[in-house]
């Protein structure tokens, strides 16, 4: 399990952006839970990696922040900005290329339809 996490690491930002694209707006804890749910516990985003990634993308102008009061607490939601949407598209393309290339390397005989 531990070793696999290393493979996901480089794609953390792309994963977060893709999720935000699908969900509209999300808060930090929700993102960790959603990833766990989708990957059935295979991928685990640690808190120490998630928040720096979110803050970096916020500073880069890819994410915008919205605040709301929920259950007596203040909740900070993240959503994609216009440039964030564009960035998501180009990063997804990159990731798909990467997956395709890895497939060819790992299993050269398998033909994939994307």
């Amino acid at each position, binding site marked *: 399990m531990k070793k696999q996490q290393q493979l996901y690491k480089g794609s953390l930002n792309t994963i977060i952006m893709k999720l935000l694209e699908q969900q509209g707006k999300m808060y930090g804890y929700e993102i960790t839970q959603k990833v766990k749910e989708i990957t059935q516990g295979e991928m685990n985003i640690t808190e*120490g990696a998630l928040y*720096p990634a979110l803050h970096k993308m916020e*500073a880069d102008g890819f994410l915008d922040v919205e605040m709301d009061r929920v259950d007596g607490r203040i909740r900070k939601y993240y959503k994609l900005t216009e440039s964030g949407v564009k960035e998501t598209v180009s990063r997804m393309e990159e990731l798909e290329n990467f997956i395709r290339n890895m497939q060819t390397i790992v299993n050269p005989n398998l033909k994939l339809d994307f």
Partner: protein
Amino acid sequence: MEKRLTNQQIDQLFNFTKKHLVEHYDVQVELVDHLANAIEDQWKENPNILFEDALQTEFKKFGIFGFTGLVEQKQAALQSHYWRIIKKEFISFFSIPKIILTVVMFYVLFQLYSNPNSFLYNYDLLIRIGFIVLTLGIYIYQRVKIPKNKKFLLNSVGNYLYGLPIFALFYLRTNLPVNSDPSLFKIVLSSVFAQILILFFLILYTKIIPLLKYEINQTELKFSKL
């Protein structure tokens, strides 16, 4: 009935983040909500877990640096965001049309530094020291001005930006005033440095600080609506 955190426990979480060196309100808020959600999820599995134990379990997930690494990385991200703008603005002073201003400015500085009767020639050292004192003054004033209770992370980035012109100290130490040795090299060096300093000040006070103030205002606005 799902077990929920009491207001008192929420306050405890705020104190917990403060105890772990998170002094900025916006970061505290985010961490408190995260911890609260995580603790409540633990209670869904097992309602008998003690609040303190659940909190410790969640805190461990933040790694050995706890929250401090998080705050530092966020500061670094914001600082590099402003540096990118500074660089862009700086480059613009060397492209059309602003390069005309840059050239004129350099010419004037060069003339002043080469004229033994000019103010800049005679009081070079004094001006430089005055500049550094001014920077320190602004820096200290800005630090004192920030309200203690609700400080945002952007405020700390502001402190950093206001303190930046202190790099002039480096010049004070390495380069003697023009009138001690009025060679051409010295005059050019002094003009170039004075020019960089002026451009930096211009960018800082016409672009960066207003942008920072706007962003702090926006953050305050978002929080005041709640």
